[in-house]
């Protein structure tokens, strides 16, 4: 392409960081040194070069990780290497919250101020950081804000880091070679101050992943978490690992899909689509290749179950993906992993490497004519990329803007090819289904909701963490097991896209049909408990801010609606209503309905759900009533 390259020159460090991801330049025409004999009469480019576009985000991430931000020289070098127009690369870089496009210190603290942390120690951490290092970074310095020095750590707010069971949470990123990333839980004011002063971060909060029910023999999905060494393939195999893959290869692709269909497993990512039907749809697509994507972009505030599976039992996910690939004819798999989970990345990468070395990935898996491999793609700070079509765009090296459906991913997904997307938890269910049969799986749970489900208990509970329970277990019982506060006022069920339930409305079975009857949703399994020590209105405002922040901005209802919703809530919260609270409630309803009906994707469609329940069920914001 006849792109106009940037004039700024990359530093040697930036060049090296990018080359480490992209490989050395092939010629003087894509960022290498001009060699007359090779380059003066011949150049290759065109389609072959354009097909490398998907490497854009990894290359930008490499710059971010190495120097802490993406300079003009660095951006320009990536553009030259991949022949991506600078304006496009800029559009991508500025889309993702964890890619900085102006100078940042090598160390940044990303401090969770989301619903799970802010009232559970987060505010104290923030106060300590403000006192020690000034306000959070909120605008690029070219605006009006602050000049940042490379050697003076700074901090900024972050949406939910997926560590609500160990609130408050901080993600520490130290740019360098190697870059260091640590997700730290139960951060105290002292720890925060020390980190801001440059102290070495301790071990990742999850190095020893445990779950409250550890050792419970009824556990299915969590049976190995905290029990079997997640860094050892041998340990995994000794614990029965890879038996399911062996069985799957015996069953054959159609046999596997028959079992999955018989299990009546439905997707755990939120939409509850029958997994067997999805697999069959991908398997029978004529277009090739087929792609498999494990959606590990868990970013729904209050959700951390996938993190527990990925750090506590990574081989299970690799094995389950291999089975899914076998059944649906995929040769290439991606795990799209949220950026905020460095340990999950490490564990999963370790599992993939060991599996590959053992012939469990790659060519001729288990001696069969079956080829499959897995590549991890890390998010870069965008909740919307958990939406499957936005995820495709992100993998393709673009802004994470959802696509219009149809066409559906099974027909036209990543790179325009048939694509199977399954959530981490959904895939985890595949192993017991294949091992014990679909019928046995379907015997668990209720008639309409089969199997077990993971729930993320956090907030005002004594024993926060991920719980596994058969569908149909009552919410009340689950809250009791986790030790919910006796002063519980409300539960946020299903995440920011879910609903607030008053304490009195928590006695119903946790199943798809039970939730529907209770006019709520299980969503991503969030069960966040609020008692009287917490500010529910502030939580609702935070959720409204979250949707505004995370809207990709593509469609009008969501881009503007999330702003108008947040503005109305702030007017209510501050007693500055336009025409009284009832008028504001009516306006919120109008905005919410338009977002739900007319937005492109699930983000806008659910952006009013929690707000609506807060107003209608919890009767919040009545203070603004005249």
């Amino acid at each position, binding site marked *: 392409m006849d792109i*106009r390259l940037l004039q700024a020159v990359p530093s040697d460090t930036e060049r090296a960081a990018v080359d480490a991801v992209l490989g050395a330049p092939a010629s003087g025409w894509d960022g290498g040194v001009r060699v007359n004999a090779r380059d003066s009469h011949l150049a290759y480019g065109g389609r072959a070069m354009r097909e490398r576009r998907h490497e854009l985000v990894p290359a930008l991430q490499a710059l971010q990780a190495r120097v802490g931000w993406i300079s003009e020289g660095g951006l320009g070098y990536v553009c030259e290497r991949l022949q991506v127009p600078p304006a496009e690369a800029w559009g991508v870089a500025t889309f993702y919250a964890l890619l900085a496009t102006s100078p940042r210190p090598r160390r940044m603290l990303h401090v969770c101020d989301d619903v799970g942390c802010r009232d559970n120690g987060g505010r104290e951490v923030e106060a300590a950081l403000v006192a020690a290092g000034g306000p959070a970074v909120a605008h690029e310095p070219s605006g009006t804000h602050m000049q940042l020095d490379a050697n003076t750590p700074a901090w900024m707010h972050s949406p939910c880091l997926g560590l609500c069971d160990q609130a408050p949470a901080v993600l520490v990123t130290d740019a360098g070679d190697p870059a260091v990333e640590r997700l730290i839980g139960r951060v105290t004011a002292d720890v925060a101050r020390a980190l801001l002063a440059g102290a070495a971060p301790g071990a990742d909060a999850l190095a020893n992943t445990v779950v409250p029910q550890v050792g419970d023999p009824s556990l299915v999905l969590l049976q190995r978490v905290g029990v079997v060494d997640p860094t050892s393939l041998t340990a995994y195999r000794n614990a029965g690992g890879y038996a399911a893959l062996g069985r799957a290869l015996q069953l054959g692709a159609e046999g596997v899909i028959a079992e999955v269909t018989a299990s009546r497993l439905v997707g755990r990512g939120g939409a509850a689509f029958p997994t067997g039907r999805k697999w069959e749809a991908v398997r029978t697509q004529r277009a090739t290749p087929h792609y498999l994507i494990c959606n590990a972009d868990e970013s729904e505030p209050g959700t951390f179950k996938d993190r527990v599976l990925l750090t506590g039992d990574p081989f299970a996910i690799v094995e389950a993906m291999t089975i899914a690939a076998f059944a649906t004819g995929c040769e290439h798999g991606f795990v799209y992993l949220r950026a905020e989970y460095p340990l999950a990345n490490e564990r999963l990468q370790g599992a993939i490497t060991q599996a590959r070395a053992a012939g469990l990935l790659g060519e001729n898996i288990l001696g069969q004519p079956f080829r499959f491999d897995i590549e991890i793609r890390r998010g870069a700070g965008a909740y919307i990329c958990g939406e499957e079509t936005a995820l495709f765009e992100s993998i393709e090296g673009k802004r994470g803007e959802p696509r219009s459906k149809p066409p559906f991913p099974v027909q036209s997904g990543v790179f325009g090819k048939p694509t199977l997307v399954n959530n981490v938890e959904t895939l985890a269910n595949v192993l017991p289904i294949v091992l014990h049969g679909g019928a046995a799986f379907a015997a668990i749970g209720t008639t309409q909701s089969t199997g077990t489900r993971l729930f993320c208990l956090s907030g005002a509970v004594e024993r926060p963490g991920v719980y596994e329970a058969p569908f149909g277990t009552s919410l009340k019982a689950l809250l009791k097991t986790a030790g919910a506060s006796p002063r519980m006022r409300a539960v946020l069920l299903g995440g920011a896209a879910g609903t607030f339930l008053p304490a009195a409305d928590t006695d119903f079975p946790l199943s798809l049909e039970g939730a529907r009857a209770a006019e709520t949703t299980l969503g991503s399994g969030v069960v966040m408990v609020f008692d009287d020590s917490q500010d529910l209105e502030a939580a609702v405002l935070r959720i409204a801010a979250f949707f505004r922040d995370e809207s990709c*901005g593509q469609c009008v209802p969501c881009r503007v609606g999330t702003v108008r919703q947040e503005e109305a809530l702030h007017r209510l919260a501050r007693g500055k209503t336009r025409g009284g609270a009832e008028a504001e409630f009516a306006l919120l309803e109008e905005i919410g309905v338009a977002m739900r009906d007319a937005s492109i994707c699930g983000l806008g469609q659910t952006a009013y759900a929690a707000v609506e329940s807060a107003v209608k069920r919890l009767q919040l914001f009545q203070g603004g009533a005249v």
Partner: protein
Amino acid sequence: MTTTLISIERPTRAPKKPLAFTIDGRAVTVEEGTTILAACRTIGIEIPTLCFLETLRPVNACRLCVVEVEGARVLAPSCSRTAEAGMVVYTKSARVIHARRLVLEFLASSVDLSTTPGMAELLAEYDCKPERYGPPKPHALAGERDAAIAGHHAAPDPDFAATVGQPVMVDNDLYVRDYAKCVLCYKCVEACGADHQNSFAIAVAGRGFNARISTEMAVPLPDSACVYCGNCIAVCPTGALMAKPEFDMRAAGSWNIEAQTTTDTICPYCGVGCTLSLHVQDNTIVKATSPLENSITLGNLCVKGRFGWQYVQPGPSADSATTRDG
């Protein structure tokens, strides 16, 4: 009768199957692959659009064209959703009207739509009250919106409704960018990008309400990859992008569409033969466009055709032709 060795004609595609469905209770039969919007137009049902253009890939961003499809959970963008056999579509249901009204209000309360053709009528038709979201916030400073960090924003000011207001960008002699008028329809990005020009001088940067059309690092156009084809201006639905003569004449109050004639001719430059529509006011060319439906240009031109006609304007350069009247 002669025979040919092989088929030399354009390969014929399998004829598209007809399919029948219902719009507002009326039976419609269209070819497979027809969008709901196109089907509506064949039977005279008007659907408002903003981000849709026949010559661009639909981006489904504005959501003004949504319709209700019976049985669907949410509304569908008629500009890109293709009709299916048996589909039952409503273009004026209460849900549709509500969504369109709110979309229009969202835009009118956050964007300057004063130069969007037909917008005043549309706002009236849908009974929009954009003022109910509060008085518009004063314009941002130059560069302020460009400095936003994705995923972060300042808490709302309860006294104002947020807008995309910001100063006009005048950084070259050929055209002006007034992003206070930008509805983020993506048309300019598509026209500059893969749909037509493939120069990729602009893209959408940032996200959410701070999403904006930007060059790399928000540099001025002359420092960008812009080649001044003006194909972005040609597709801009709101006047956010405007050729300098029109911008200046509007500012001076001398822009008068009623006094303009439009004549189609052929560009005087290379041998491609692009149709130029010359908009002439007082014997002066004030704008050059090309018809969207023209098979050669699809509405596009290059910098020479779009702007390179100064030499025939009344003034000193043309007068020189008469200095030696033979």
